[in-house]
C-alpha cells in the first residue's frame, strides 16, 4: 500500500489546522479508509486531545525517530474507528528533535500501512513547518475569511510554490452566514487572490469548541453544520465527486433571481 501524504498547514495559528486535521482524518476513516494522522507540533501537542486519545499514549514521534520503538508501537488506535491511528507529538521536547529527513522516513513507513497519512503542521514557517511539509504529496492550506489569516496563507502558498509543491488546496474555515457574512472577506476574493483550488468551506459553528473540549470531532455529530462539511470534504479527498457549491447570494439577490 502506498498511501497519500497530506499536510494541513496555514501559517497563522488559531485558524483551525488541528481541528481540520482531526475531522478530515476521522471523516476518511468513517469512509472505511485506513488513516494515520501525525501531530507535527512537537512541544505543543493537541491533536491527541482533539481526537480524545490523550489517555492512550505510550510512545511519541521522537521515540520512533530515536529508535526506542517501532512506528507500529507508537501508533494510538482510535476508540471509535479501528481504521484511524494517531502518531502523537512529544510534549516535553522541541522541534529540533525532528528533521525533514526523519519526517520523510516516518511518513513513508506510515504510507505503507495506510491509505492516507495526515500531518498536522505547527503554526509559523520555521523548522516545524519545513519538516511537516517536506513529505507531503498534497498540501491543504486552512485560512479564515479575515485579512491576517489570508495574508499568512498567501505567504505559505508562495513558500510551497517556490519549493516545488504542486498540489496545494484551500479550505476556508469559520465562514459566517447571514448579515455578519459582510464583515468577512468574501470567498471569491480569497480564492482569486490565493489562486489555489478550493477544497471546501466550513461554516462557523459554536459546537466546535465544545467538541474539542470533549474530544469528539464535529464530524461525528450528524446535526453539526461544520461536521457535515468535513464529511463532504473527506468524500472529495477520497475521490467522490462533490462540486463545491457557489457562494450563497445575499437574500435580496436571491429574491430577485427567483423567476
Amino acid at each position, binding site marked *: 500500500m502506498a498511501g497519500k501524504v497530506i499536510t494541513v498547514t496555514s501559517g497563522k495559528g488559531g485558524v483551525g489546522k488541528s481541528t481540520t486535521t482531526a475531522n478530515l482524518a476521522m471523516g476518511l476513516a468513517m469512509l472505511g479508509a485506513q488513516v494515520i494522522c501525525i501531530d507535527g507540533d512537537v512541544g505543543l501537542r493537541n491533536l491527541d486531545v482533539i481526537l480524545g486519545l490523550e489517555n492512550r499514549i505510550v510512545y511519541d514521534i521522537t521515540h520512533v525517530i530515536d529508535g526506542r520503538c517501532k512506528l507500529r508501537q507508537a501508533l494510538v488506535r482510535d476508540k471509535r474507528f479501528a481504521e484511524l491511528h494517531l502518531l502523537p507529538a512529544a510534549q516535553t521536547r522541541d522541534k529540533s528533535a525532528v528533521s525533514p529527513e526523519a519526517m520523510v522516513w516516518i511518513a513513508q513507513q506510515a504510507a505503507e500501512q495506510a491509505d492516507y497519512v495526515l500531518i498536522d503542521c505547527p503554526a509559523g514557517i520555521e523548522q516545524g513547518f519545513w519538516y511537516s511539509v517536506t513529505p507531503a504529496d498534497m498540501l491543504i492550506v486552512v485560512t479564515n475569511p479575515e485579512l491576517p489569516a*489570508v*495574508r499568512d496563507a498567501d*505567504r505559505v502558498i508562495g513558500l510551497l510554490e517556490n519549493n516545488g509543491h504542486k498540489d496545494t488546496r484551500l479550505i476556508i474555515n469559520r465562514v459566517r452566514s447571514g448579515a455578519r457574512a459582510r464583515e*468577512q*472577506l468574501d470567498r471569491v*476574493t480569497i480564492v482569486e*487572490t490565493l489562486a489555489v483550488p478550493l477544497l471546501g468551506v466550513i461554516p462557523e459553528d459554536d459546537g466546535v469548541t465544545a467538541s474539542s473540549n470533549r474530544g469528539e470531532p464535529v464530524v461525528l455529530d450528524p446535526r453539526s453544520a461544520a461536521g457535515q462539511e468535513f464529511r463532504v470534504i473527506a468524500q472529495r479527498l477520497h475521490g467522490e465527486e462533490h462540486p463545491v457549491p457557489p457562494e450563497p447570494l445575499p437574500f435580496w439577490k436571491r429574491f430577485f433571481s427567483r423567476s
Partner: protein
Amino acid sequence: MCWHSIRRWFSHAPTCQEVARERLQLVLAHDRADLTPGMLAMLKDDMIAVLRNYVAIDPARVEVSIMQEGRVTRLVADIPLGPARSSEESVKE
C-alpha cells in the same frame, strides 16, 4: 445604529468587507514583491532622478505601483513625457 446604516447606504461609504478586500490586495502586493510602501517611494524618486538625465518629465505625474494578476506581480510605472506644467515652471531653477 439604524441611522448609521441608512447614511452609509446613501453615502456609499465602503463596507467592512470592501475595506478588507482593498487592504488585502495592497498588503499582498507589497508582501509578494518584498517591497515596502516606503521602499517603493524611494524607488520612484531614484527612477525619476535617472530618467531626468535623458528626458523631460514632471515628477508630480509619475506613478509607480505594484500590480497583481493572479499570482504574477508586476511593477508598473506610468511616466508621462514632457516638462512640468506651467504652474510649476516658476519653481524650476
